[in-house]
């Protein structure tokens, strides 16, 4: 379960890092506050990813309406496909 959290945060930080770095470069030269940096990162994310944002909203609304959170997770936060095989292998080794 810890691995799930780590993986999600890694995926998240990858997207965020692109945006955040570019904002930081601009803000560094203007001496602005961290809160402003975050706000700018959000604004920039919206501009750069507006189509993706709209698609995710539509997809999420459809899947949440149908109660299909498992498919939603597979689409938005896919896990390591080798995890189940590793867990089963540990059991086979002990048998």
């Amino acid at each position: 379960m810890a691995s799930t959290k780590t993986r999600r945060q890694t995926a998240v930080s990858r997207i965020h890092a692109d945006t955040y770095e570019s904002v930081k470069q601009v803000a560094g030269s203007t001496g602005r506050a961290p809160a402003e940096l975050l706000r700018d990162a959000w604004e920039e994310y919206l501009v750069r990813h507006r189509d993706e944002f709209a698609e995710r909203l539509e997809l999420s609304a459809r899947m949440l309406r149908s109660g299909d959170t498992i498919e939603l997770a597979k689409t938005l936060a896919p896990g390591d496909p080798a995890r189940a095989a590793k867990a089963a292998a540990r059991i086979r080794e002990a048998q």
Partner: protein
Amino acid sequence: MRPDSLVGRCLHRAYLCPNWELRVTERCRGEDDLSKKGPQFEDLVEDDVVSQFKKKLEHTNRTSREVSGLRSGLGPVWVVQAGEKRRGCAWHDEEHEIIWLLASHPHESGSPEDSWPYFRELDAAGRLFPTEEDYDYFFEEDDARFFDALVVEADALMQRAAAAPGQEHRTRLVDRIGAGYEVTVVQTLEERVLALSLDDVEKQGFEFVPTILAAFGFEEIPDPANRIGNRAIDPSTELGFMAFLG
């Protein structure tokens, strides 16, 4: 991941307890004598063995008796007693925080059809413990827990807001994202305002915002909001969204 809002619920193939979840192996579900069948944990809970499994192992990870004579070195397997005529057996997978119901069988002391030889035969054949298929289901459900909890907690917040419109209602979604929500009804129009902590959203990832909005019933990109309840939304620390629904 077991968000507090999901504890005490049957969810997909699991029942979520405070410290672990209860699951039934696919082999047990398909081959053994469960009186109820179905893919969800909820489908099985009226079976006597599953009912006892849920009752006895929700708050403790052991029962009073261990199944003896098993060869596998995976730790104790516990007897789940359902009346005089049936037995189940359960194993705590501590690494994944799951207690598995491994098997269920009619019980008649001394009979060749007794449950103990059945459990031992399954063990000897390498068929007693969970398989890759079982873990596949577990991991895909575990990945979905954030979204399951988000739906439950957004619904709860929306219900609170509907019961007391015109004021902000606050929560911390999935123990991660500070959120405020307000509904105002004007004739046939319903104005919905959602405020999210910018810092929390950034930590979770901006790409999760559309799903959070969807959980609150927004189906198109909402307009920005600058007020919620009787306060202004601080644009340096919060994201505000609003939409009118007819």
